[in-house]
């Protein structure tokens, strides 16, 4: 059963008065999100993620194409009862306290006051804002706004949660909390569809991923399928006590050898080379420190994919450091 089906969605923003022919922000994008999965919608800034989510949430009309959410066509207001949405860098009524804010959204979702009381307590605990319950949102930091925004998206216990860059503006601890929250939502049987331009976010928690660049879908699938299609994983061997680069038996098979102080890092193209290298280390009197198979990364995949596109869309600098 699909929670979201996007079918050849295209959006061309009305061009400004002068200016060239407008580039479509979305260009025939199709994808589907299954119920109960965490689905990452990955792409660099300006690739059309926010546009897609806005169309899904009925904030914007598509130029062509369509979509279904929880089995209902776009524009169905009633289905919104079952959806929670957190926009990108959200702004909320700053004159409300956290409690009033959640009460307001609860009422909008049709919840009764009696239910709301404990629901709010529970959610504020969940997002770590229990002590800010009676504080006005104008006094909230960006990270706190992001978290109260998450609480707002969850107040009515939705089946599908749509999040636009939910980890942006958060520190590492906050990012981890959001990741854990998303995982716990899936454990409760909910579907989470979130956009991000940060690869590790997706790599760590997503069941499936779509990579979108310039409004076009580049790849869709399970992270491990996308990353290791042929299972030809490279392996990193670290040892100490020898200069591995100067050992002929090792240098012959390694793709790369790095010397860092006492440690030698040997990168091997595949698992077959591990055994000969290990015995070479032993015979040279070295000491093995670690052997680690290297997963391919989405970043590599992404670089490969975009390298092939004629326009060569660059990935922004914030993406670096895929292996935290």
């Amino acid at each position, binding site marked *: 059963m699909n929670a979201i089906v996007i079918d050849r969605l295209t959006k061309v923003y009305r061009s400004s008065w002068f200016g060239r022919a407008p580039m479509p922000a979305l260009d025939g994008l199709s994808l589907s999100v299954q119920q109960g999965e965490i689905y990452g919608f990955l792409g660099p800034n300006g690739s059309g993620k926010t546009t897609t989510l806005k169309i899904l949430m009925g904030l914007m009309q598509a130029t062509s194409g369509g979509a279904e959410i929880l089995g209902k066509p776009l524009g169905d207001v009633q289905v*919104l009862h079952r959806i929670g949405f957190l926009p990108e860098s*959200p*702004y909320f009524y700053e004159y409300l306290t956290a409690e*009033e804010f959640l009460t307001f959204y609860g*009422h*909008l*979702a049709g919840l009764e006051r009696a239910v709301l009381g404990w629901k709010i307590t529970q959610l504020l605990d969940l997002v770590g804002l229990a002590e800010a319950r009676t504080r006005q949102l104008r006094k909230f930091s960006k990270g706190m706004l992001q978290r109260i925004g998450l609480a707002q*998206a969850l107040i009515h216990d939705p089946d599908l949660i749509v999040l636009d860059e939910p980890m942006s503006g958060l520190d590492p601890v906050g990012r981890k909390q959001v990741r854990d929250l998303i995982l716990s939502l899936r454990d409760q049987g909910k579907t989470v569809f979130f956009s991000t331009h940060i690869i590790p976010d997706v790599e760590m928690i997503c069941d499936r991923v779509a990579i979108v660049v310039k409004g076009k879908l580049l790849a869709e699938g399970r992270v491990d399928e996308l990353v290791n299609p042929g299972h030809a994983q490279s392996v990193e061997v670290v040892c100490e006590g020898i200069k591995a680069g100067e050992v002929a038996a090792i240098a012959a098979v390694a793709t790369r050898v790095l010397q860092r102080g006492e440690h030698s890092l040997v990168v091997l193209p595949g698992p077959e080379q591990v055994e000969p290298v290990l015995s070479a280390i032993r015979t040279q009197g070295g000491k093995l420190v670690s052997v680690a198979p290297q997963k391919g990364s989405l970043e590599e995949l992404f670089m490969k994919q975009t390298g092939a596109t004629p326009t060569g869309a660059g990935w922004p600098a914030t993406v670096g450091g895929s292996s935290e």
Partner: protein
Amino acid sequence: MRRITVIALNTFRENLRDKILYNLLFFALLLMGGSVLLADLTIMEHRRIVTDMGLATMNLVGVIIAAFVGIGLVGKEIERRTVYTILARPITRTQFIIGKYLGLVLTLLVNVTVMLAVFIVTLWMYRTPFHAALFQAVGLIFIELLLVTAIALFFSTFSTTTLSAIMTLGFYVIGHLTTDLKGLGENSQNAAVQSVVTWLYYLCPNLDVLNVKGQASANGIVDMSYVAVASMYGLLYAALLLTAACAVFRHRDF
């Protein structure tokens, strides 16, 4: 209906937490109090000055709130993107617009009531007699506020805050001058001026219809049928603008 109420009550709360409202209210009370002092200094009829000033103050302060809060009502929501999470709820855009509108109407109602109460207390303290015509005048002022709010809301659904402010005030001013405007058009030799003026005359609401402050201070009770027709006119115009605002809002992208 329930969702409209939720939006309306929250809008009302938003207005109550806005300092500008209290400043304006304070300004109104100051003017009303001042009118008493002014009346003591002049040889003109005491009752007339106090009544004139009181009604004019209520009208002015009401219009300022209706126009400026009215523009921000939806304009601010769009600009600050607070509208995203609200429209992602099971609520239609029409319900949202109507809710916002009713919220400000409630604010205006409370405001006008407070001003009227202070006004009546002032009159009573100075033993100035007052007349049913006073309530007729205030009633029509309130209709005007409903109309001005609808004008402001309408413009703010598709243009920027500044532009909406200019348009709303323009509509308000022209609305009070339409009778003069018609005369101007008829006397003009220039065909272009004539047609523009005629257009404006028919496009802008005739707000002078809703102004019976003069009669009220002269103690002249206004014919109830006039009040009824004038009210209907104002309400119908406001409803038309609200419908247009909803239609525009329903079709726009955010």
